[in-house]
């Protein structure tokens, strides 16, 4: 009885559900703020943390402005080198998001292309791709990323390694996440291919590539969007973890993970702010993305209603 209703506008329905979901709205707002802060960091940050000239070691490890020893120049204090923590966090978020988005972009393009082709063509191509995915799945994402990073260290000379670190990280994280996209795209393509509108296009004699792009791809975007969002959170998390482990971005361009890593060294001597604020930023950002992912998944999954 509700089939007619349920089929009504996936887009409109999504919008409707979003407008009636305060938590999702809040999450979207937070995500936008993070994105905005990251994009505009060079203009809104009070200091440039990369500019060594502006840093004074005498300012190091100052507590937040509201505490007794605080300095009003640094709202949430400074780190061990005297960098303004707020500025460092803005720039760190910028770096973390940049790596996260780039690697997800890389993973999704690779995964969706391979997955749609495998699901549509089937046969040998499909089984080869799925075997590769099996191998890849037997190596957890963080391990793959670490491994690729390790290989890059082995191949690239030290200096260029630091410069290329963002590229290496993007490829490492991207390669460790493409399988999710490929599997989802393949399974959805498989379902769509058996539907009658695709059969009609095949009967017409339409070129397979055109069928995949015009007919199948737009119809499988829903589940892919869910993976995209959820894996964006995973990518940010991976980048932070790699940086925390000291194999991520070089320390002169600290990402959130690097800031936390630096902060832990001072946690036990009482300088809690150095670790707390970057951690909070990271967690809030990932929670927001995850809430959006959950929202999308529930909204696009008719079985849950």
């Amino acid at each position, binding site marked *: 009885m509700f089939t007619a209703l349920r089929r009504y506008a996936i887009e409109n329905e999504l919008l409707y559900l979003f407008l009636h979901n305060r938590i999702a709205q809040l999450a979207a707002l937070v995500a936008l703020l993070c994105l905005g802060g990251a994009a505009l960091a060079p203009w809104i940050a009070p200091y440039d943390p990369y500019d060594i000239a502006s840093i004074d070691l005498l300012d190091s490890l100052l507590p937040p402005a509201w505490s007794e020893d605080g300095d009003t120049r640094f709202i949430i204090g400074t780190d061990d080198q005297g960098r303004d923590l707020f500025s460092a966090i803005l720039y760190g978020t910028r770096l973390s998001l940049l790596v996260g988005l780039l690697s997800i972009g890389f993973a999704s393009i690779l995964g969706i292309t391979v997955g749609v082709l495998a699901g549509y063509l089937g046969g040998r191509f499909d089984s080869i791709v799925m075997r590769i995915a099996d191998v890849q799945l037997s190596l957890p994402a963080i*391990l793959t990323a670490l491994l690729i990073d*390790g290989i890059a260290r082995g191949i690239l000379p030290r200096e260029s390694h630091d410069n290329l670190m963002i590229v290496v990280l993007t490829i490492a994280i991207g390669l460790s996440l493409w399988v999710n996209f490929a599997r989802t795209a393949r399974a959805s393509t498989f379902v769509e291919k058996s539907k009658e509108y695709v059969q009609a296009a095949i009967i017409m004699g339409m070129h397979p590539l055109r069928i995949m792009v015009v007919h199948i791809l737009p119809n499988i975007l829903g589940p892919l969007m869910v993976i995209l969002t959820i894996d964006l959170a995973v990518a940010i998390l991976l980048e932070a973890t790699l940086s925390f482990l000291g194999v991520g971005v070089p320390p002169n361009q600290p990402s959130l993970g690097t800031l936390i890593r630096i902060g832990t060294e001072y946690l036990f001597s009482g300088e809690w702010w150095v670790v707390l604020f970057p951690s909070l930023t990271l967690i809030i950002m990932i929670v927001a993305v995850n809430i959006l992912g959950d929202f999308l998944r529930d909204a696009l999954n008719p*079985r849950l209603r």
Partner: protein
Amino acid sequence: MLTFISRRLLQSLFVMLAVSLIAFALFRFVGDPVAQMVGQETSIEDQERIRERLGLNDSIPTQFVRFIGKLASADFGYSYRTRQPVSEMILTRLPATLELGFVSLLISLLIGIPAGIYTAIKRGGALANTLLVTTLVGISIPTFVIGIFLIYLFGVKLGWLPTFGRGDTIALGWWKTSFLTLDGLKSMLLPALTLGVYQLTLTMRLVRAEMQDVLKTDYIKFATARGINYRSLYFNHAFRNTLIPVITIIGLQLGGIIAFSIVTESVFQWPGMGLLFLDSIRYVDIPVMSVYLVLIAMMFVIINLIVDMLYFFIDPRVRLASEAN
């Protein structure tokens, strides 16, 4: 059953072969193995002699076959960094990682599964909603942040628990265990919790999602319409039907636990394989890297084989289909 398992074994073999190939490529092509082994002052002739002795001048396929032969006979070569046999290094660190992983898996399943069932049944209830929000935060906090927080709270502020290393262990042959001393158990608590929290939230969310799907099926509706009591409805009818996807994911999670033990071990300076691997990455210690890789893949393959066999016992459709063959 036999064909079923033999097919699985064949697939596992393929995976292992592929991973060994990666490991071999790592070993052979990332950096020059000879340059890593010898000092700067060794002459070119000496290097060439070593090269010849190691068989590095043979054809690549021959080298690969030899590499696999060595792997199979547990001859893993020497670490570039410490000059120790890799097998020895791994063997001393394996128990630490396995025990840590085991305890955190236990934590994640014992709490995660019941909590998942609860949130699926009491959908919309106050406690269920609170739990759900908690899990969302749970999967969003990076493992290392949880570790740092726990260390700060229980180690630094309260001073209740050790935050560093394994504490006292007792040796059972070559296996050093933390389970038999109080200090060892106390040292285990924080790292296991750190590692377990993420897996726990994952388990709970998964069990919940699967339960919700099953509760919507016709056979559950029919069982409800027959007045089957709720306890049997939820556990005997519904939960049993979620077991297959749940077991699959638990299998994958074991891999996740091993992988994230790298992070946990780094935070707690836990002397396990993860820490070893991390060091090998930092110092480009290729033999350790490649062996670690092969070992992880092997664990994964074994876990998957066990999972497949569990399917066999849970699902009559799989069982009977293979009997019919």
